[in-house]
């Protein structure tokens, strides 16, 4: 099953940077109404940099791995880079398999490329990233207009 790459199982079993930490600038709670999966996610910004992403994720291996990869990829990065990563993940996940993902931009996120072939699971993989974008908005971060996230 190409869906469950080692890397994904790895992330889902030992999610990076998991848990909810203080201080934070915004906290959001997102659910997937079809399966009841939930994520609570906090962000802490330091100027233009994402200083911390902390989260509590209740869900399937794909949604937990995705949140873990998110935290790993965006923490400590400038906002613009974090947004580029988010946009790349979204593009890859909604490509129905056409976009294999760019490892330079999404890092371990490429391991989730297989999810795009399972439309019902795309929402699982996107859950954390949507929460992240929402949290940025709530924290008042400036998200450039071109971004489709």
């Amino acid at each position, binding site marked *: 099953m190409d869906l469950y790459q080692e890397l994904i199982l790895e992330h889902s079993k030992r999610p990076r940077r998991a848990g909810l930490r203080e201080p934070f600038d915004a906290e959001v709670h997102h*659910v997937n*109404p*079809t399966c009841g999966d939930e994520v609570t996610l906090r962000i802490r910004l330091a100027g233009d940099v994402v200083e911390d992403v902390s989260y509590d994720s209740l869900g399937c291996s794909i949604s937990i791995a995705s949140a873990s990869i998110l935290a790993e990829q965006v923490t400590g990065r400038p906002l613009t880079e974090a947004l580029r990563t988010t946009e790349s993940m979204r593009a890859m996940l909604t490509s129905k398999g056409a976009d294999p993902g760019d490892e330079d931009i999404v890092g371990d996120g490429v391991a989730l490329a297989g999810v795009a072939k*399972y*439309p*019902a*699971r795309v929402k699982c993989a996107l859950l954390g990233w949507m929460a992240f974008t929402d949290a940025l908005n709530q924290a008042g971060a400036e998200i450039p207009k071109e971004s489709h996230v």
Partner: protein
Amino acid sequence: MPSHDTSARDLAPEELAALRADFPILTRTVRNGNPLVYLDSGATSHKPVAVLDAERDFYTRLNSAVHRGAHQLSEEGTEAYEDARARIGRFVGAPAQEIVFTKNATESLNLAAYAFSNAPLGSRLRLGPGDEVLITEMEHHANLVPWQELCRRTGATLRWVPVTDEGRLDLDALPALLTERTKVFAFTHASNVLGTVNPVRRLADAGHAVGATVVLDACQSVPHLPVDVADLGVDLLAFSGHKMLGPMGIGVLWGRSGLLEEMPAFLTGGSMIETVRMEGSTYAAPPQRFEAGVPVAAQAVGLAAAVDYLERIGMDRVTAHEHALTERLLAGLAERSWVRVVGPTDLEDRGGTVAFVVEGVHAHDVGQVLDDSGVAVRVGHHCAWPLHRRFGIAATTRATLAVYTTPDEIDTMLTALDRVPEVFGLAS
């Protein structure tokens, strides 16, 4: 009919013959072995094989509870369902997320009407005493009774635009009726009795000028005219699949996204929720918010096939074809002094719905004589009883056309009609 259609080509006899072969029921015979002449498409249209096949294909390949499963069948079924939504949306110029699937136009219009009583107190949408709902005297019961019931529930007042002797809306009466008290203005695009096509844009603009939400009953226009929701300028628009070559059991409510977003849930249950706790629930964004229960995916796919079918012909040509037939029918009726058409007798802003009375003979009897010759028309008040009362008649005989109607069928009907004076001993 709108002037932009007049340039389109009518259907050539070979084209029409080829097209009719797609509708197996048209080869049926009825009373006395007569071939069926179906002039009741305004009640429900026939369905081409492509539509029946699309539904069957769904059931035999993709059948599943769409949006409710993660297995392959449900994934493929969901994709087919959402693809159907997008195609049906494109057909009326709307993005997919503004298309709500219902069971028919009646449910669509009830969904709209209940929004104004289900909205929480204090919401912009919630009606109360002092507020008014404006409709017209030519409405089908489906765009009339739900508003009466809304007024009963909320204490709001129902008003209506009268109809002229020619069968047009009396626009002179509009300014007095459409006021800042008017919260909803609901009217039909094309009358299912008179054939009248109303000046939607003008009415919608007038409605918006006083801040009303504008609701259009497009049941009798979407199957016959090119319809673009952006051009019309209304806020909500309802139509039924079964009148436009699609299956029974599916209808559409289109709504401006901003408005759908504001509207409260109507039917509640599975698939329309965000979170559910015993203590209370929150609901999904539109269109899901309004689609409670396992979706009617087979019917959506069938309706999308109907839309494809109409698009392959071209809606301009559908209009042109029906326009030519309407002209033939009105001319034939005009030759018969004992027939009186109820509705416009000119072709301007008029569709292929022709209601008439034979002086001294009840519509039921007229219809029976036509039926005896294999000609299927509708008789009665056609769910527009107040409109009939306005014209002082209990019932009319109504012929309604569709893309598969032929000039010969019009002639057959006219010939059959000539038996009426004979049978009932009128001096003709």
